[in-house]
């Protein structure tokens, strides 16, 4: 008898930077379920709740299946050629009138490397501008900026396997069990097997509750805390003198700076008692191998870059880097944010972090791409929206991002997008951002395309198509290639994803030794992978740092840009929930995940709740200087008194109507982790 | 018991407001069944595309297949129901439940019913059965406030047929205040003697208080029954949501003898 078309496709889970292996069960052309993969080196047979529900995210019922053109405020289906023509005419007119810098592109950190590569190539060759960015801005650009200054490379220095090799795990400003569950789970298991656990977080996260020591510091006091720890380390002689001598520079300046952070002062600023500071400093410096991981509780501040530098200082003076089981390990949000950065979907760098305005790089890419490389500095995504409001930026393509929901200060973004002459959104479903587009182009989802993702440990892994895209939908690189041709550029006509990869590998030294065949062999390769390291690199900076010596850079504590005052007496911080991801457009399609947190919520400490007569479920109005939202209360002592928290996944209660646009001066990273709000109870009818 | 997961067509034929966020509904089955509905049983309603939820019968379906239910607006499905016009086609499954109000066992006893808020409708079929039997029966009905009371017409009729005390958390004027348990002596007096059996339905904390109080009073857990609410997705003991210890509320309940309830709470 003929056999049914049931198969299992081995691919990579699309929900976070951990990069778990996932088997998609396919029956008659639809994904009906998932299976974990026991032999995958990262996930080892585990998945998180989002991975387990992926079959729902791939449900085609709400997918955009044809190009859509907005007419009189409504979308109507259109053919590809009609939609393309509209874009081409508009972009050409804008370019003619205002020059190439009035155009730009936002790539997607969820898309494949191939897509991201195509996106930045499209911007730099076809549009003729470095106006190319993606959402790393709102999660980890400070990591890249900070660690490039101190170490020379912004990526996770070690590998996920090092969790099991460490004696001490230090988790700063994140809860991997919520946002990177499989990695967080491996931390729990390591602790069960005897590894010590130290958590630094204003919230009592799950890991904080399990930890051997939890430093519950005040919001926005990371630098003071770290300087304080280094101060204690120096005064006890716990630093690694040989390591500092041989591999670091600028130690004197750091010594001088941290001298200004004696334990007592630090305890005052951070709210962490001196004895705990002491214990933490000892644990960190005296353990044989300390693996440090951090997340957005470090980066999403106006001091984001300095926070990262402070962490780097701590790691360097104790020599907890460059060996197995140690290192500085930023936990990245979206599945391919590492890849999007590697691919140069950033205004300032080409693929492989080659400077966009550097003459040699320009020459290299100009020759390879057969085009003039633009000379003018590119804009970040926030730069593009600001310029749009100033009338200097008119045309934009957004690939699979939903800045209206995920960016800080929603009103600002919305006004900026509405001010554009031509907004093209390449999307799976009708997001809030897509609603304001002039043209929507239907994109293929991860299960519908071949390509690669790069996870947080720099592992480049194969993504494999399991099902065909619905309707007319296409892969990003195909769409951009077709548009490029119509706009007069021939250099983006690839026959398949592998051809894109081969081109990008050739131009990206970090990826040079990789090919689809080699990636097949051992569940991917970790960069740098080239002639010198053909099997990839598990550990960065072992002999020396990418930049040579590790640079110690003194940094000072600064208050968040907006502090509570009498008008807005509470701190608001934004969080993520385990169940959802980004703006929730994928995960909210699962009836189970949707049930778990039915609509937006605000977390508040019982003391604050009592003062305001708030109970679980009370409807609240939360307002800041920028806007207000209504949502329901969850009372929990997982937060310190005086601080409230909101997840940012829900369009019904977008926390980003409230958050501050104040930015990190280096990376323009907005301060999503702290702003001042007030809360009122809404009387219900 | 109907084991199908597929609903039958039913029409919404009448509705009127009856208490805060609450409405009195009459439904009509497209194909009346001869199946008898027992006091305590429940059914489910399906609203096209909004899911399914369980409700108790206020009256059993008559020969034309008409029956009533009192429904409070609480979630997505009930909000949609409140927007639904009379005449609309809905889906129905039922009857469900084998844990019933023990009419046979208690009909010769002096019976007290204790209801809290929206817990009154599930007791209605028991009240009617006991009254029809001529049993000695009284009701204490506790609500948050006047607006929170439901089943106005029914209560007016019951008022004529049995002793009834209404009490409020937020009493105003000459309303009685306090919890139902505060008025035991009064109802005993009106009934002309100590009650011998208690049926209760309302918030779980209230039912637990009732259970404990009568256990103390009688030094026995025998003659106390309560009706439980649980999240339900099937009604036939398959979906697993309504577990209580080793039992399923949909099939073993929704009415439990207090003793059994305590046992199930403790088995785990």
């Amino acid at each position, binding site marked *: 008898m003929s*056999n049914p078309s049931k198969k299992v496709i081995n691919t990579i889970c699309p929900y976070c930077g951990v990069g778990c292996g996932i088997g998609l069960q396919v029956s008659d052309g639809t994904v009906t379920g998932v299976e974990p993969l026991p032999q995958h080196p990262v996930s080892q047979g585990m998945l998180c709740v989002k991975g387990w529900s992926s*079959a729902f995210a791939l449900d085609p019922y709400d997918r955009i299946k044809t190009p859509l053109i907005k007419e009189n405020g409504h979308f109507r289906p259109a053919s590809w050629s009609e939609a393309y023509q509209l874009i081409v005419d508009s972009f050409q007119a804008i370019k003619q009138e205002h020059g190439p810098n009035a155009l730009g592109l936002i790539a997607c950190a969820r898309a494949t490397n191939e897509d991201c590569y195509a996106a930045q190539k499209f911007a730099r060759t076809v549009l003729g501008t470095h106006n190319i960015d993606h959402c790393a801005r709102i999660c980890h650009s400070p990591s890249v900026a900070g660690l490039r200054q101190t170490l020379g490379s912004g990526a996770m220095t070690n590998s996920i396997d090092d969790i099991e090799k460490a004696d001490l795990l230090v988790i700063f400003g994140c809860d991997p069990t919520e946002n990177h*569950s499989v990695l967080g789970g491996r931390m729990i*298991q390591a602790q069960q097997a005897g590894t010590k656990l130290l958590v630094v977080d204003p919230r009592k996260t799950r890991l904080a509750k399990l930890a051997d020591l939890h430093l519950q510091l005040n919001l926005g006091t990371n630098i003071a805390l770290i300087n304080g720890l280094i101060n204690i380390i120096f005064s006890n002689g716990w630093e690694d003198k040989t390591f500092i001598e041989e591999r670091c520079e600028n130690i004197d300046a750091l010594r001088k700076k941290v001298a200004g952070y004696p334990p007592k002062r630090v305890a005052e600023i951070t709210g962490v008692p001196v004895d705990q500071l002491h214990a933490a400093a000892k644990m960190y410096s005296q353990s044989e191998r300390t693996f440090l991981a951090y997340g957005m509780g470090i980066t999403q501040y106006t001091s984001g870059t300095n926070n990262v530098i402070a962490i780097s200082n701590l790691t360097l003076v104790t020599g907890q880097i460059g060996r197995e089981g140690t290192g500085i390990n930023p936990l990245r949000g979206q599945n391919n944010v590492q890849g999007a950065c590697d691919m140069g979907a950033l205004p300032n760098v080409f693929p492989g972090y080659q400077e966009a305005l550097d003459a040699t790089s320009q020459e290299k890419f100009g020759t390879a791409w057969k085009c003039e490389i633009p000379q003018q500095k590119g804009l970040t995504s926030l730069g593009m929206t600001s310029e749009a409001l100033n009338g200097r930026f008119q045309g934009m393509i957004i690939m699979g991002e939903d800045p209206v929901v995920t960016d800080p200060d929603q009103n600002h973004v919305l006004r900026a997008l509405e001010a554009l002459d031509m907004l093209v959104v390449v999307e799976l479903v009708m997001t809030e951002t897509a609603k304001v587009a002039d043209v929507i182009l239907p994109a293929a989802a991860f299960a519908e395309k071949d390509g690669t993702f790069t996870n947080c440990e720099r592992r480049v892994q194969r993504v494999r198509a399991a099902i065909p895209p619905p309707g007319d939908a296409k892969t990003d690189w195909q769409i951009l290639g077709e548009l490029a041709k119509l706009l007069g550029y021939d250099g983006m006509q690839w026959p398949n994803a592998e051809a894109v990869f081969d081109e990008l590998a050739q131009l990206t030294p970090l990826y040079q030794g990789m090919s689809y065949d080699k990636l097949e062999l051992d569940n991917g390769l970790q960069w740098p992978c080239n002639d010198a390291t053909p099997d990839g690199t598990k550990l960065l900076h072992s002999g020396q740092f990418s930049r040579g010596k590790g640079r110690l850079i003194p940094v000072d504590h600064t208050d968040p840009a907006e502090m509570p005052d009498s008008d807005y007496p509470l701190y608001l911080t934004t969080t993520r929930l385990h169940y959802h991801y980004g703006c929730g457009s994928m995960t909210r399609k699962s009836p189970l995940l949707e049930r778990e947190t039915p609509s937006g919520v605000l977390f508040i400490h019982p003391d604050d709740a009592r003062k305001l007569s708030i109970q679980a479920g009370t409807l609240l109005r939360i307002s800041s200087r920028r806007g207000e939202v209504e949502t329901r209360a969850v009372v929990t002592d997982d937060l310190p008194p005086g601080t409230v928290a909101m997840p940012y996944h829900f369009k019904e209660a977008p926390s980003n109507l409230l958050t501050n646009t104040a930015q990190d001066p280096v990376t323009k990273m907005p301060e999503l982790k702290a702003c001042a709000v007030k809360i009122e109870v809404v009387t219900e009818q | 018991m109907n084991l199908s997961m597929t609903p039958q067509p039913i029409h919404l034929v009448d509705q009127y407001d009856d208490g805060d966020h609450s409405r009195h509904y009459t439904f009509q089955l497209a194909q009346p069944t001869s199946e008898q509905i027992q006091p305590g049983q429940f059914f489910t309603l399906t609203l096209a595309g909004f899911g399914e939820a369980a409700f108790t019968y206020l009256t059993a379906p008559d020969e034309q297949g008409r029956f009533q239910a009192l429904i409070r607006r609480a979630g997505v499905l009930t909000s949609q129901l409140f927007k639904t016009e009379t005449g609309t086609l809905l889906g129905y499954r039922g009857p469900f439940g084998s844990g019933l109000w023990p009419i046979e066992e208690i009909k010769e006893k002096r019976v007290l019913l204790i209801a809290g808020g929206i817990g009154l409708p599930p007791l209605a079929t028991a009240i009617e059965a006991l009254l029809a039997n001529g049993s000695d029966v009284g009701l204490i009905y506790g609500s948050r406030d006047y607006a929170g009371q439901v089943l106005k017409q029914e209560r007016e009729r019951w008022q004529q047929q049995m002793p009834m005390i209404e009490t409020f958390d937020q009493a105003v004027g000459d309303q009685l205040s306090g919890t139902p348990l505060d008025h035991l002596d009064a109802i005993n007096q009106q009934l002309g003697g100590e009650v011998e059996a208690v049926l209760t339905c309302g918030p779980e904390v209230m039912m637990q208080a009732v259970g404990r109080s009568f256990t103390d009073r009688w030094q026995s857990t025998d003659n106390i029954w309560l009706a439980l609410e649980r999240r339900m997705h099937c009604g036939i003991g398959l979906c*697993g949501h309504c577990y209580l210890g080793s039992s399923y509320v949909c099939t073993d309940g929704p009415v439990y003898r207090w003793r059994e309830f305590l046992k199930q709470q403790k088995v785990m």
Partner: protein
Amino acid sequence: MKSYLLDSLENLFQHLAVSHKMFEPQSIPGSEDLHWLPSPKGPTSRYGTSKQVLPLAPAKGFLFPERELLFRFDGQTFIETLPEVAPQVLFGLQSCDLCAIAYQDQFFRQDSYYLARRKATILVGFDCLTPCDGGFCSTVDAGPFVRDGSADLILHPKGNEWLLIPASEQGLNAIQTLNLPPAPAEWRAEREQQQAEVAKMFPTDSHIRTGIERINQATISAEQWQRLGLQCLTCSGCTSLCPTCSCFTTFDTKTEGESNTFVRERCWDSCLYEAFQRETSGHNPSKEAGERLQRYWFHKFSDHYVDEFGRYGCIGCGRCEETCPGGIGVHSIMRRLEKES
């Protein structure tokens, strides 16, 4: 029933394949893990004496799929949508998984969707001659040899040949026309003996026995459950992979066309989810993670269910141990229950 001598698995396989779709655990490109997949070519070589590996995802989904259409509504009527399943063979089931199917057969005995799938399915089981990693079937009476009545056909390796035991009407009918010779008379007795020997090869698993005892004596405090519950990341992996887990939820999806047409599906649910029992009012009888974890293990190991099912809910496959990111799968949790009181 009579038993037969089978000299080649290939013959049996091809014979069944004439009128059935064949499924077997197999690996896929890019990985060596086993998955239940259509088997176009014939039996893989793993059977017999080689070390047993269980596919991490059990065959549960063939009978109780992750998502199942229940009915559709065309605006006027509700139309039940029973699955139409062509005759199929699940070839290569181990005893533990067969016990799980027998358990599900009991549980879903009146569920028309399950029955529609089950009736079309022939189960071919193999005796395991060596323990698998993490398995403890012998401790929970689920293996290592296939239990009577749990399979349609039982295969037991005998050197290069096989003892084939038809264990149901359906099984017997399926092989009738093969005209196999009877098996040597002493093979059945030898099989009994060997089962006892293989069972001895398993670890003692004292932690499992102690854990079961403690669960049934209810001597585990709420605090201890709560401590363990902290490690549950509510991934739903244990319930998805556990071959005896059966909870589901229902949900509606509007269909294109008429405004109120829709379909209702059911999909696997997990008792570990916070909102599994949460009611519309917000009341939640199992609000704490510890309570939910306790529920899971109660359901797997409580004597209360033995009356109905004739066995515990756990069949000893160890899948939850392998997939639990929080380190509280069956071995870990039972060890903690043994160690911490």
